[in-house]
């Protein structure tokens, strides 16, 4: 329930983001019991590297507070779409925050926007869109996979945002959106987005709108741009957006001392060596460094944006 608006304390039914360390962040649904793999209801105990946590004991805790466990502690964070993206169960490859950020901005989403999204996938982008267009907007989201569509709908409902979204099991490339002139923006993350372009045009408002297509492959991008131009979309823009993270640390570097000259007469004996070494180095220096991680995501997908101008109406 805590996706709808900010609250201060954990309640039953909330999704809590449990932060143990940067590599260990989990989304937990707060309930007394949980279904195990065999389908039986068992007490909801979450096992972590720092010990076990009785999930129902989170109820009443203030969000942002420290949770003590056997061998350490964690933090109970309030969910946000950004934290959800990092912790959600993957049913498909998902969009991450750097791309999501560009989509929200370039589609000009704001409270009241009506958006069509295909496919729903794991609901990563969906949650970010819902947050941005609430409380007066609406998201129509489609997936051609029945189970994924259903799971997404269940999640939206459990997260308290069911009123702002209509999740449908439908193949928009074959059957269209079944929507006419309602959307301010359309987002496509499909294997063949070009097939959905004419339907997207029909779904967009007659006063115009924005479209975005996300595709990992350049061939998809080329065909989509072709289709967009053919259907009267303008201001086509294809881009890549990558985020580079820096490893921040205080590095200690030794410094060669240029002022000390080593003895040249070769008379040094074993006892003198340590001090000779010390004399050739200044006090080490602590340097604040931020270097890129050794590997970074090099490609997620190409984002293609375009505008449907108001003068173009869909052919009837």
């Amino acid at each position, binding site marked *: 329930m805590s996706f709808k608006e*900010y609250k201060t304390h954990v309640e039953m039914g909330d999704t809590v983001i449990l932060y143990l360390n940067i590599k260990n962040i989990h989304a937990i649904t707060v309930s007394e019991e949980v279904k195990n793999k065999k389908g039986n209801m068992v007490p909801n*105990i979450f096992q972590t590297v720092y010990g*076990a*946590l*009785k999930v129902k*004991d*989170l109820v009443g805790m*203030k*969000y*942002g*507070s*420290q*949770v*003590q*466990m056997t061998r350490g*502690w964690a*933090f109970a964070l*309030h969910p946000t779409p*950004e934290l959800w993206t990092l912790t959600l169960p993957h049913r498909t490859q998902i969009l991450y*925050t*750097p791309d999501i*950020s560009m989509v*929200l*901005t370039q589609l000009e989403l704001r*409270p009241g926007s009506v958006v069509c999204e295909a496919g729903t996938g794991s609901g990563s982008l969906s949650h970010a869109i819902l947050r*941005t267009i*609430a*409380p007066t907007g609406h998201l129509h989201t489609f997936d051609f996979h029945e189970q994924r569509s259903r799971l997404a709908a269940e999640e939206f409902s459990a997260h308290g945002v069911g009123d702002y979204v209509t999740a449908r099991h439908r193949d928009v490339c074959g059957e269209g959106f079944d929507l006419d*002139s309602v959307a301010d923006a359309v987002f496509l993350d499909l294997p063949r987005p070009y097939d959905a372009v004419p339907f997207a045009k029909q779904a967009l*408002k007659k*006063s*115009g709108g924005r479209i975005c297509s996300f595709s990992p492959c350049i061939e998809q*991008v*080329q065909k989509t*741009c072709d289709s967009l*131009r053919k259907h009267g979309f*303008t*201001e*086509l823009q*294809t*881009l*890549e*957006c*990558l*985020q*580079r*993270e*820096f490893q*921040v640390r*205080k590095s200690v570097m030794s410094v060669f001392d240029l002022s000390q000259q080593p003895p040249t007469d070769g008379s040094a004996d074993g006892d003198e060596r340590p001090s000779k070494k010390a004399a050739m180095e200044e006090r080490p220096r602590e340097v*604040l460094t*931020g270097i890129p991680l050794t590997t970074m995501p090099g490609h997620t997908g*190409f984002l*293609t944006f375009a*505008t449907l*101008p*108001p*003068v*173009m*109406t869909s052919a009837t």
Partner: protein
Amino acid sequence: MREDGPAICDGKNYIIIKGSFMKLAKLKTQKQCQLGRASVDVAGLLGHPVGTQFRLHSGGGKQRLMRPEPVEHTEDLADAIAADESAADNRNLLANQTSQAMTKERIMEMREQGATGKEIVTTIVDNSTNLRVDSLSQLLTACSVRPGGRYLVLESGCLAVTVAAVLERLGGHGHLVHLFQGGTPQRHAVDAINFTSDQLACLSCLDLRTLMTHHPADPTASAPAYTRTRCEDSELALNMLSSKEMDGLLLCCRQHPVNLLRYLLRFLAVSRPFAVFCPYKEPLLECYFAMKAEGCIMLKVTETWLRNYQVLPERTHPEINMSGGGGYILSGFKVDRSLNRAPVTD
């Protein structure tokens, strides 16, 4: 049949695009609209839906006043190139007089439509802080800006772009306190976007020194009394900040952010994010350690890399030039480190 959305009105601000030339302008019938070397007769633009494409016809006279005509069919420069078979391969171009003549005609046509390519793009972002659209979009998600939330933004040198962006995302729900330092708060971007009065009601401005008078950085010392400047909504803003329960903190200023961040963190609620933009990385490394010392978690220093592509049949490639850097962002979460004992189970 055209269903009209918002119409182009006299006295409002619009982004005008001519090829790759982009300009923010307030349309006034008494004045012409200047687009590069050409002037456009504003009267011909009014009343048409926002987003309409116009074809510019050369007018007479020394002023080169152009007359806009709304067009139904949109011809992209790229369309013209794609349709031109000779462009696929230029080996015959010089030799063939006919194709050369056709190309020339098309180029002139495109010039009339305004599809030139190399003019300077004007934006409303101030160069001194080098805040690019991708960095701005990351700031908004780093702070999880949502309608209904309460945000504290300290901004200088960005012409209020960050303030305007957050205000747009609030959409009339929630609140934004814009902290400024002396003089008057920058308002360019806020004024440029035609916000409704409901949306503007979410914004209040407060001088940082006024805030410090009421909430001294050092609680033991008394801050010197500071005369309120005219442009503040201090009562509203102070009431909001005094609760120390803001949902997000955004810093985007010319100064080194470290002591400002240390000071303003106290107004942020726990389990809420902050994000700091800086054109340089090094100050953010210091802020990283300062926030670590404050007990913050999920600290991250990032930069975004943006590359545009030209997508045309047989001629798809990244664009030749790309922006070298768009600044850096430090983000993190404030938490409460007073231990909460959860009954443990082994």
